[in-house]
């Protein structure tokens, strides 16, 4: 019997010939991702660090992105504490305010490799499945322990095989695919499981795959992974990584799965996840009576260049409706600069969009773009939980950049196929 992706990676990295679901294995991750929470994480082990130091200065990757630039004395002090830690222990991978969102930085800098393992004190660490990396989120305490020891346990997960078939229709994007899947399988439908994507995936760009892997956690998955095919190899080449730099792993054809699902991409229409759960799936075309006070394009899910281009294509020569407002956050400085060169930023600004610095802020209500009671926001983020954007009496709708851009023009939720 063959093995799944997760079984193969965890066997290889734990020094076992083979492993089975449910087995506990000890592994040493390639990297440990932290963001603004590195301040709290390192504070937990201040004395231990003085005694033992960091296990490796290459292990931590720290990106200041959640409240960036700082919004208060408290958050500024957090950033200051992080910079002191980085200097004291000579941490190699540190990215200060303005570089961008941690997951995008890990991706751009080639810190997540095919067949590798990355753990991060952020739930969307599962994003790197887009390049065939086994990556998953952990809590702050676990991150603190990893800084000291470099090692932790993982339970070998059961695996769900998802086969994507057919051609995606015009005006429909990767975000619609994953919102459709989560609506089908439910917010806990893949809890504790590894998810593998198979089928007609050649049509999905590396950015599309990032969107889908990123939201794996929203169906409870431990990791959500794509094979390293031609598209992935080309992307990795573009950031300076040759196939000899990594050891790609994929499941065997006769691997044993806990569950198998098949999705017809040609039948998917623009989807909106309605408040207050990501699996509360509706269709954009059925929500045209819903007025929106704010439209947000950005976050680790949809703040990449192709997302900004998709939004600009819809908003070019148009204006944001006077009863709503549009916020745009490029996911990194690199994306921001590319969008500047292409004239995308100008297009979005001329349409009435507010361009915010690369970062996470509004998505979690920590910084900028906070909502007022009774307001509705349509967002390209990954969570619509009650209170998520800073106000428990506000409502969040999740959608693709195309749907958010179209909704910004009309001031109501709009199926993007009606404006293209």
């Amino acid at each position, binding site marked *: 019997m063959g093995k799944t992706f997760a079984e193969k990676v965890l066997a290889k990295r734990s020094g076992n010939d083979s492993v089975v679901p449910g087995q506990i294995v000890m592994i040493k991750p390639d990297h440990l991702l932290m963001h603004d929470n590195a301040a709290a994480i390192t504070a937990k082990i201040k004395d231990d660090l003085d005694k033992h130091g960091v296990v490796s200065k290459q292990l931590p990757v720290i990106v200041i992105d959640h409240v960036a630039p700082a919004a208060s004395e408290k958050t500024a002090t957090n950033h200051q504490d992080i910079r002191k830690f980085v200097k004291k222990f000579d941490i190699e991978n540190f990215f200060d305010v303005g570089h961008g969102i941690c997951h995008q930085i890990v991706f751009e800098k080639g810190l997540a490799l095919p067949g590798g393992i990355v753990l991060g004190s952020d739930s969307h660490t599962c994003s790197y499945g887009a390049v065939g990396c086994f990556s998953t989120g952990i809590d702050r305490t676990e991150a603190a322990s990893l800084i000291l020891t470099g090692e932790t346990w993982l339970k070998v997960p059961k695996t769900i095989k998802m086969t994507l078939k057919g051609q995606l229709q015009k005006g429909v994007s990767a975000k619609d695919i994953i919102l459709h899947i989560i609506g089908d399988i439910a917010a806990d439908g893949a809890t504790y499981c590894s998810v593998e994507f198979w089928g007609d995936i050649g049509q999905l760009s590396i950015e599309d795959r990032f969107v889908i892997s990123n939201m794996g956690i929203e169906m409870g998955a431990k990791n959500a992974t794509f094979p390293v095919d031609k598209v992935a190899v080309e992307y990795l080449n573009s950031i300076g990584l040759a196939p000899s730099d990594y050891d790609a792993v994929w499941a065997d054809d006769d691997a044993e799965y806990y569950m198998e699902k098949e999705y017809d991409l040609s039948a998917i229409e623009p989807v909106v996840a309605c408040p207050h759960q990501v699996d509360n799936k509706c269709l954009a075309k059925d929500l045209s009576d819903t007025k929106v006070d704010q439209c947000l394009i950005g976050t680790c899910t949809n703040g990449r260049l192709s997302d900004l281009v998709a939004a600009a294509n819809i908003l070019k020569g148009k204006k944001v409706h006077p009863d709503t407002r549009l916020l745009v956050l490029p996911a990194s400085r690199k994306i921001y600069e590319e969008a500047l060169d292409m004239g995308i930023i100008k297009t979005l600004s001329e349409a009435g969009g507010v361009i915010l610095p690369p970062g996470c802020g509004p998505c979690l209500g920590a910084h900028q773009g906070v909502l007022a009671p009774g307001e509705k926001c349509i967002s390209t983020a990954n*969570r619509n939980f009650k*209170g998520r954007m800073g106000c428990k009496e506000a409502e969040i709708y999740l959608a693709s950049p195309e749907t958010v851009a179209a909704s910004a023009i009309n001031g109501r939720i709009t199926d993007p196929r009606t404006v293209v």
Partner: protein
Amino acid sequence: MSKVWKYGDSVNTDMLFPGKYTYTCGTAEEILPHMLEDLDPDFAKGAKAGDIIFAGRNFGCGSSREQPTVGFKAIGIKAIVAEGYARIFYRAAINQGLVLIECPEAVQAYKEGAEVEMDIDAGEIIIDGQKFNFPLLPKEILAIRDAGGLLAYTRNKLG
């Protein structure tokens, strides 16, 4: 007698501890006043050591923030009994030395005012005299929980 706090399905981490406080509240003292703020305003005022939480499916879904588990531990919550947990929350709870019980039958059997007893090491929970068994954690993981949490465990190991 233990008070039982009962909640439904998919209680996410924003309900357990709002994201807007994530980067300003880290210590137990800072966390406690905001516990379950957007879910049950009575909890932070009323919860006491020895209390038990009952919940439905997918408890703790969402963010990796650990404040909810730090808060539950600081209050002295005896155990959380749920139909199921999100994995990062589950792991975070072990790392704080918190007892999580996955037992859908017990959750479904519980009615308000029922008497709840449990033998955590034996994997037994008794609701109004009706006994339910729940699976015990593997010994490697119990060692972390029983050390009082992961940092205590790591410190023992590092010496």
